[in-house]
């Protein structure tokens, strides 16, 4: 270009007419140049802007890098923490695994225990059935024992009762024989014959009374419980024993007070209690100079206390408890079964009562029986 501009100026010098044209062209050229210069300047400025922006950007980048470094450090820390946590988790996992294993074993053991339990349950069921069978057996045996006890009591009574029966039988024979004689002698007074036969009848009813009492006593009946008069039980026992006590000169005093204590129980068994105690007292006073048996009763506070005291030799110290043991006897061989007092103890126990004995040295023995009174009969208490 400059070559062209120079050429043009030379051409302009060479040709003045041409010089104007050349100038014009030059001017245009300068303008173009100036335009280009401005443009370039603009571009430079734009570039400067861009450079500034870049620098700004660069700074920001650096900042971001620094931030990134921080982030990286944080990340690193996090990563380490995570690693530690992973480790911890791992050990927890392992522990958990152990626990799981243990629990599995526990479960196995539980299963085994459950099976064992089922076996035990089966055994238990069998045992329960066996127990029930045994219980039934025991009940049967107990009833047999009650019966055996009554028979034992009867056995101790036999001698006296035989004597008691022999007397009315003997008298019957004599009265009837007299009647026969009167008829054979052709006695005309009928009253005399009837009188003899009446006497015989009285003796028959006396014997019948004894026999029926013994039969009631010895009968194997279910042991029922009903309101029972204690006075009646004592009177019945005394009626069976009276002859034996009378023949031995044993004085019996009975003081039951004004009222009639009623207990819930079995009349026969309660009678048995007093027969046993009277038999015991009868033998206890056998060698005593003063033969006495005292029966007393006092009711109060929903219970009745019956005491039976004898004037016998008493119970040697230390034996007060043993006398209620079965087959324990201080009597000679063949004299006592050793069952009487143990049967008595059993009966009183079954009736919800207690029996005890007091025997101060040098005095006779006193048996105390506590029995709960029967609840009052509403019909009787009504005025």
């Amino acid at each position: 270009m400059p070559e062209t501009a120079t050429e043009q100026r030379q051409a302009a010098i060479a040709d003045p007419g041409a010089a104007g044209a050349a100038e014009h062209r030059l001017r245009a050229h300068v303008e173009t140049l100036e335009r280009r210069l401005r443009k370039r300047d603009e571009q430079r400025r734009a570039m400067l802007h861009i450079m500034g922006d870049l620098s700004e950007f660069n700074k920001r980048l650096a900042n971001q890098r620094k931030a990134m470094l921080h982030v990286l450090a944080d990340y690193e820390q996090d990563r380490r923490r995570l690693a530690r946590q992973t480790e911890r988790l791992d050990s927890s996992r392992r522990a958990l695994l152990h626990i799981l294993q243990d629990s599995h074993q526990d479960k196995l053991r539980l299963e085994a225990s459950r099976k064992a339990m089922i076996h035990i349950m089966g055994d238990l069921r069998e045992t329960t059935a066996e127990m029930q069978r045994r219980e039934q057996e025991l009940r049967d045996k107990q009833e047999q024992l009650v019966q055996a006890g009554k028979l034992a009591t009867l056995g101790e009574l036999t001698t006296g009762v035989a004597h008691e029966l022999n007397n009315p039988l003997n008298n019957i024979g004599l009265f009837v024989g007299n009647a026969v004689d009167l008829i054979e002698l052709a006695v005309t007074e009928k009253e005399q014959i009837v009188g003899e036969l009446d006497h015989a009848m009285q003796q028959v009813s006396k014997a019948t009374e004894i026999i029926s009492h013994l039969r009631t006593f010895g009968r194997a009946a279910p042991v029922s419980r009903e309101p029972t008069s204690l006075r009646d039980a004592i009177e019945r026992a005394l009626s069976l024993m009276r002859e034996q006590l009378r023949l031995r000169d044993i004085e019996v005093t009975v003081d039951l007070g004004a009222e009639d204590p009623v207990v819930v129980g079995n009349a026969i068994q309660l009678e048995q209690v007093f027969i046993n105690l009277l038999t015991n007292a009868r033998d206890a006073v056998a060698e005593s100079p003063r033969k006495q048996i005292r029966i007393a009763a006092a009711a109060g506070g929903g219970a009745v206390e019956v005491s039976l005291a004898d004037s016998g030799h008493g119970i040697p110290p230390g034996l007060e408890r043993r006398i209620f043991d079965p087959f324990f006897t201080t009597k000679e061989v063949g004299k006592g079964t050793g069952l009487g007092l143990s049967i008595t103890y059993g009966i009183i126990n079954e009736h919800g009562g207690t029996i005890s004995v007091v025997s101060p040295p040098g005095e006779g023995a006193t048996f105390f029986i506590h029995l709960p009174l029967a609840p009052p009969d509403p019909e009787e208490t009504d005025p």
Partner: protein
Amino acid sequence: MTTTMSVLIVDDDPALLQALPQALRLRMGGVTVETADSAAAALERIAVQDYDAVVTDIKMPGMDGLALLAEIRTRRPDTPTLIITGHGENELVVRALRGGACDFIQKPIDRGYFVAALYRAIRAHALNRKVKERQLALESCAEELERLVQKLERQPRAVPGPAE
């Protein structure tokens, strides 16, 4: 044998004291029967009367038949005593016989046996009594004779016998 016999029956059973005397009155003619309901009462009667026989039960309250028997043996050794025992009480029977009982009767009482035993006892008693009476009479006779002999021996031979 005396025509009126007296018997004492001792027992604690009032029915027997009714039946037995009646049986005796019916079976034994001319017998007087008295009763006592205890050994003590029997001893009171014995003190005032000599019975031809005493019949006592062996089992009685208070003094029993054996003790009564012993008392009778000391107070009236000649009175025959019969003992009533229960059936099969052999030991008591032996003790009674050793104690001087004349016989024993077992319950239940067989009237025929009882009456026979009582008759036997009474007859024996009566015979004993007769023997004693005769013996006494004989003794007195013998004494009389003795006295006569002595008297005769003391007399001088003033009256010569025809033989001399």
